[in-house]
């Protein structure tokens, strides 16, 4: 950019010419012109502000004047009410009606010691009674007797002024007073007191009981005096302002600064505002007429149709006077503030920048691995910056200690890793032995399993045989039973034989008898009969023998049957026991198989362990390398102190001890 435009050339060649000089001056002017414009704008702005401020104050003045008038009216009405009530209280006793001047003043001052500001006050009471004592009162009265800004007088029925011949009462007013039954304010009236013309605002309170009105307490507020009061109070606000009060005919009745205004009509010096506009309540906007600025404020009284107008004015020039002085003071203030800012910046920069720079240097050294950093803590205050410095220093101290610890740990770790590698290899050897042992156990278990299986088979066979034997015994028992039955049958049959024998015997006897009866002829037959008898007897004997033998046989058979029967449960029990043995053998077989599989698993685990221990050995080597690497890395941090030397010494000693241990182990192994 610079080369394209060639600013240096332009500077050197162009501005050195005469035309260039002129243009340069213009350019300087171009810089100052906006500055001037800004100043002008600033001037206009400040002037506007001042005028606005003055107008507002003028309005405030008008409102304040109005409020003062209203307050005075209120106060006077209150005082009159107090007086009227006092009179009404004493009305029943006519002897006490004769108040002296001092009595009344005492009543007034005790109730409102500083309230009566301006005006006249009087009591217009029971005119008939006053007629009788008229003369006495008249003699004692002195009208130069004033109390503060208040005076009092008593008016007779004839409406003649007592205290001042020139004081003229409006006759209509007293007629109105007789009619009223409550306190009220009347329209302002023109009056002359002590040769001075006043515009007075009458405030009247009736003295009455429940039946009729006896008289009244009245007060004339001299409006002329009010403007003085207002200006006195507002002089600090605006000392160049003046206040005029105009009555309902737009005639000036009071002027604070210039008495010439009094008696003039407003229209004589105000052409822009009509009389109707003057009494427009809304018209509070300041307006200029001639060299003055005016604000009007209408004053209304409760129960009175006539209003008054407060007219505040001030010279228009005065509204913006002293503007340059004010602007100059503002500029001075700005300069002072600017200087103050610069001073503060320098001081603060000094207090923050220096320690920060120190810390930066320290941190740079830290970053280079130098942990021997000391911060200069001479200029220590109690700010966040110094706190930061202290904290940083603590951090560096801690870091130094930790690096120291890490270095120690690295050395220890190296030693531990070596030890670990040795242990891992030992463990691998142990694992191999374990594996072979477990294989031996496994083969032994398998043999045991086969023998248990043989046992189980044998037990099963024995069980079958025992069962068969039990069956055979049962069958034998059955046979014995049948034998007994047969023998009993034989016994029965022998009974038959016995019977036959008996009958044969009898037949033989009878045959013998028959033969005997026949005599010699029957001799041979009797021999036969005798033979038959002998045979029968032999048969009987044989039968008896058979019978006894059979009985013996039955007995034998029964006893053998019983023995067999006794044998059966034993055989059954044997069978059951053998069955149990077979079942237990099977269970044993299963258990043995499980044990065998468990041993197989154990073997697998042992194999895994062997592999793992080898891996562990490798890991130990690796961690040893890592520890050495860590030591190397940590040596980056250098700080010279006795700890570092100690560590180096310890490391060397540790390595020497390790070497010695290895040698001893090797020697041991060789011996073994």
């Amino acid at each position, binding site marked *: 950019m610079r080369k394209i435009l060639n600013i240096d050339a332009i500077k050197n060649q162009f501005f050195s010419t005469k035309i260039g000089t002129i243009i340069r001056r213009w350019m300087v002017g171009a810089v100052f012109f906006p500055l001037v414009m800004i100043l002008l704008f600033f001037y206009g702005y400040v002037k506007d502000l001042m005028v606005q401020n003055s107008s507002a104050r003028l309005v405030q003045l008008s409102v304040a004047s109005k409020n003062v008038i209203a307050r005075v009216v209120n106060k006077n009405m209150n005082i009159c009410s107090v007086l009227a009530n006092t009179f009404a209280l004493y009305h029943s006793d006519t002897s006490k009606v004769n108040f002296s001047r001092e009595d009344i003043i005492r009543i007034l001052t005790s109730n409102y010691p500083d309230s009566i500001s301006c005006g006249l006050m009087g009591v217009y009471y029971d005119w008939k009674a006053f007629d009788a004592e008229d003369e006495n009162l008249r003699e004692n009265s002195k009208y130069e007797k004033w109390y503060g800004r208040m005076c009092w007088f008593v008016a007779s029925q004839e409406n003649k002024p007592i205290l001042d011949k020139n004081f003229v009462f409006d006759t209509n007013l007293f007629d109105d007073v007789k009619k009223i039954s409550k306190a009220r304010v009347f329209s302002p009236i023109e009056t002359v007191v002590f040769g001075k013309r006043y515009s007075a605002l009458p405030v009247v309170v009736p003295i009455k009981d429940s039946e009729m009105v006896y008289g009244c307490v009245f007060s004339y507020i001299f409006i002329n005096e009010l403007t003085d009061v207002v200006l006195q109070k507002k002089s600090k606000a605006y000392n160049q302002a003046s206040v005029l009060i105009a009555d309902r005919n737009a005639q000036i009745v009071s002027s604070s600064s210039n008495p010439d205004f009094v008696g003039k009509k407003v229209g004589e010096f105000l052409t822009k505002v009509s009389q109707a506009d003057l009494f427009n309540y809304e018209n509070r906007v300041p307006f200029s007429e001639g060299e003055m600025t005016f604000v009007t404020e209408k004053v209304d009284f409760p129960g009175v149709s006539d209003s008054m107008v407060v007219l505040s004015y001030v010279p228009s020039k005065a509204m913006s006077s002293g503007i340059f002085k004010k602007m100059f003071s503002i500029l001075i203030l700005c300069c002072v503030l600017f200087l103050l800012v610069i001073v503060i910046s320098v001081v603060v920069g000094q207090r923050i920048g220096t320690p920060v720079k120190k810390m930066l240097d320290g941190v740079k050294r830290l970053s280079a691995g130098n942990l021997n950093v000391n911060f200069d803590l001479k200029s220590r205050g109690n700010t966040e910056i110094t706190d930061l410095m202290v904290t940083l220093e603590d951090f560096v101290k801690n870091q130094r200690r930790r690096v120291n610890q890490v270095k120690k740990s690295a050395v220890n770790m190296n030693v531990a890793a070596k030890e670990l590698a040795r242990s891992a290899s030992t463990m691998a050897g142990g694992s191999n032995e374990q594996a072979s042992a477990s294989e031996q156990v496994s083969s032994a278990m398998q043999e045991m399993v086969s023998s248990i299986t043989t046992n189980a088979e044998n037990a099963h066979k024995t069980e079958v045989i025992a069962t068969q034997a039990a069956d055979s015994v049962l069958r034998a028992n059955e046979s014995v039973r049948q034998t007994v039955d047969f023998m009993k049958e034989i016994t029965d049959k022998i009974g038959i034989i016995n019977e036959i024998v*008996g*009958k044969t015997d*009898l037949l033989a*006897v*009878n045959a*013998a*008898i028959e*033969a*005997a*009866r026949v*005599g*010699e002829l029957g001799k041979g037959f*009797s021999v036969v*009969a005798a033979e038959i008898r002998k045979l029968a007897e032999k048969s009987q004997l044989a039968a008896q023998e058979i019978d006894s033998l059979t009985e013996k046989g039955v007995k034998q058979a029964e006893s053998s049957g019983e023995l067999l029967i006794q044998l059966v449960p034993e055989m059954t029990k044997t069978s059951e026991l053998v069955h149990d043995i077979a079942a237990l053998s099977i269970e044993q077989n299963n258990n043995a198989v499980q044990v065998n599989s468990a041993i197989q698993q154990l073997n697998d685990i042992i194999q895994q362990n062997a592999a793992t221990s080898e891996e562990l050995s490798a890991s130990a080597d690796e961690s040893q390398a890592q520890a050495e690497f860590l030591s190397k890395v940590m040596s980056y941090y250098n700080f010279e102190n006795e700890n570092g030397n100690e560590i180096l010494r310890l490391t060397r000693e540790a390595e020497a001890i390790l070497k010695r241990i290895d040698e001893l182990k090797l020697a041991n192994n060789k011996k073994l």
Partner: protein
Amino acid sequence: MSETYSNTISYLSFYLNGELYAFKVSDVIEVIELQKVTLIPKTPPHILGVINFRGEILPLIDVRKICGLKTDKNFDENQSVIIVLETGKDTPENLLTVSCMADAVSDVIDVKMADIMSIPDFDAKIKAEYTEGIFEHNGDYITILNSSAIFSINNGKK
């Protein structure tokens, strides 16, 4: 009748209360087994009842009662027999068929007349009028009973 042909007489010996007694075989009709005895009311004590012998009703006499022997129960009832007799053959009006109980029948014995001895009085268990003599056979002494005398009582004429 047999006496007329030889000097031997056949006797049927039997047991009463363990003692051997004998009737003449000529008086004996048959020896039968013990059978059912029908009791008859209001009969004398020596009549045990009546039996049916081949359709003929015969009184069953207890000889022991007549002869004044005590009833001895020590014998085997299976061997008890009833001896059917025919008495009074010599006189037709006295002919009588009766039956009597015997504990057991022993044998038919031929006895020579000369061997028969009279019974000494002092040894008599039975009245002499009911006996005819005594003889020895195989070491035992057998008393011969007079059936006519015994059973005539039964006849009711005595």
